[in-house]
């Protein structure tokens, strides 16, 4: 293990210490050490945006706390859901009196903890509504969308919902925007190497050298198939061919495209992939109105990439292009 860590059991604590030390203007701690909030949260009169999930995906989730984005985030152990209490505390931290939109990913643990957190929130008199991201196409067949996992498309939903909330949207409006965003988003990942949770010390899944796993999940969940690594162009073709028919996307659509490296894949290669993705999307008659390329949602030091495509409309395009400031995404 070639890591920059102290006690492997305390990597999340140590990370949070560093992150809070570095970004005092952006993010602040709370009484719950596993809840990070915007320095100015709760913002009175604004719908609060909450998310949360396991650690190891940095800058997701906590890196999207910021201006016109997420107000508070619940932080779990590596690849493990935050506690119900942490989700609840994040809701409290985000509540500016207009209710809270809890926008998270479709994983068993997160679903259960959010459910319990909402129970606690109801007792405390908070209004909370949720949207569950299920953008990962390979994780369940079409028709069974409710079973699909949430992956990097979550970022797009935080972006649009965060912008809507910042512009004064009501809870129902914010929820509708988040839901519309994720309903129009399709994602797929390709994994090239596995990763190692520091406290475990050995890889908890395996991809043989020279192999790629198409459709792999953010924690090594099995994908559609394993085959010999193909060219970036061929990867792009496979990914685009999987995503476009699923929504379906149509010629003439304007889209947001998010390519995220999974951790160890160089930015150079992410742009190489984007070149082909852009071409295949163009061939299909789509216009990329919002392109995002970088390490937005990672899995420790996995090699690989994910592609997310969001079918825009005028409202979503406006929200996607709105300014924001956070560790994970800043635009002006």
């Amino acid at each position: 293990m070639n890591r920059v860590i102290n006690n492997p059991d305390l990597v999340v604590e140590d990370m949070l210490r560093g992150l809070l030390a570095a970004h005092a203007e952006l993010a602040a701690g709370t009484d719950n050490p596993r809840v990070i909030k915007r320095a100015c949260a709760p913002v009175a009169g604004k719908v609060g945006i909450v998310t949360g999930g396991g650690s190891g995906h940095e800058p997701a989730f906590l890196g999207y706390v910021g201006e016109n984005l997420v107000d508070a985030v619940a932080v779990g152990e590596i690849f493990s859901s935050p506690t119900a209490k942490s989700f609840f505390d994040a809701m409290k931290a985000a509540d500016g009196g207009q209710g809270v939109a809890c926008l998270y990913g479709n994983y068993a643990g997160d679903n259960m903890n959010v459910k319990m957190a909402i129970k606690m929130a109801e007792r405390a008199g908070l209004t909370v509504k949720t949207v569950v991201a299920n953008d990962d196409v390979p994780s369940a067949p079409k028709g069974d969308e409710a079973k699909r996992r949430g992956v990097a498309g979550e970022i797009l939903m935080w972006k649009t919902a965060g912008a809507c909330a910042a512009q004064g949207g009501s809870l129902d409006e914010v929820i509708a925007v988040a839901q519309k965003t994720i309903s129009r988003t399709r994602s797929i990942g390709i994994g090239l190497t596995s990763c190692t949770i520091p406290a475990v010390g050995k890889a908890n899944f395996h991809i043989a050298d020279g192999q790629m796993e198409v459709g792999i999940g953010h924690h090594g969940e099995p994908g559609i198939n394993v085959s010999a690594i193909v060219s970036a162009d061929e990867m792009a073709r496979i990914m685009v061919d999987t995503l476009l028919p699923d929504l379906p996307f149509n010629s003439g659509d304007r889209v947001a495209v998010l390519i995220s490296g999974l951790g160890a894949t160089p930015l150079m290669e992410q742009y190489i992939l984007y070149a082909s993705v852009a071409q295949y999307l163009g061939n299909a008659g789509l216009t990329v109105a919002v392109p995002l390329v970088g390490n937005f949602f990672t899995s420790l030091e996995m090699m690989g990439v994910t592609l997310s495509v969001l079918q825009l409309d005028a409202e979503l395009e406006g929200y996607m292009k709105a300014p924001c400031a956070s560790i994970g995404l800043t635009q002006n």
Partner: protein
Amino acid sequence: MAQTLTLKQSGQIVLDLVDTINANRAYLSEIDGAIGDGDHGINMSKGFTLCGDALRAKPVLPGLAEGLDTLAMTLLEGIGGSMGPLYGSFFMGLAESLAGHETLDAALFGEALANGVAGVETVGSAQVGDKTLMDTLVPAREAYRAALAEGADFSTALDRMIAAAEQGWQSTKGLQARIGRAARLGERSIGVLDAGATSCFLILKTLAGSVQQRLG
């Protein structure tokens, strides 16, 4: 033999549960290691230990209802993943049913058990046969209910509950996991016990035993 116990004086039962989980920490992780990620004992023991510490830190040991509520809240606070919300809602269900009562009798226990199981069901959406703790819980609830319907006394009903819980727990050996981490293994998950069903049996058995002991 008495047919009720005073809730206020029965807070020790929660500490018995804590002891049981801690005593079986390694065993539970070992079972989870076969078809899961080998951390069930660690997860459970982390949450239960927090609760034990919280209860022991109080000047007076709280009664059973409050103790179970503390257990529920510390699990919801102390462990993420799925065990926090699943066992958290189980014990919250028990605590909610007992709240406001002075004594625990057979009927109230049955009500509390059903409420706890319903909590797990709502949160986890698992069915009997999915190879989870529901395979222990549901037969236990059914057997207890049937025993009361047949006129059994409190202690006898608890015996019947434990027998059914054990059978349900053991049945997981032959099941293919359809939910949770082990579901990924498909047929390869058949042949070993389920970790959650195991901890659940140990919890019910301790709960029943401690109640029976107090019934005299």
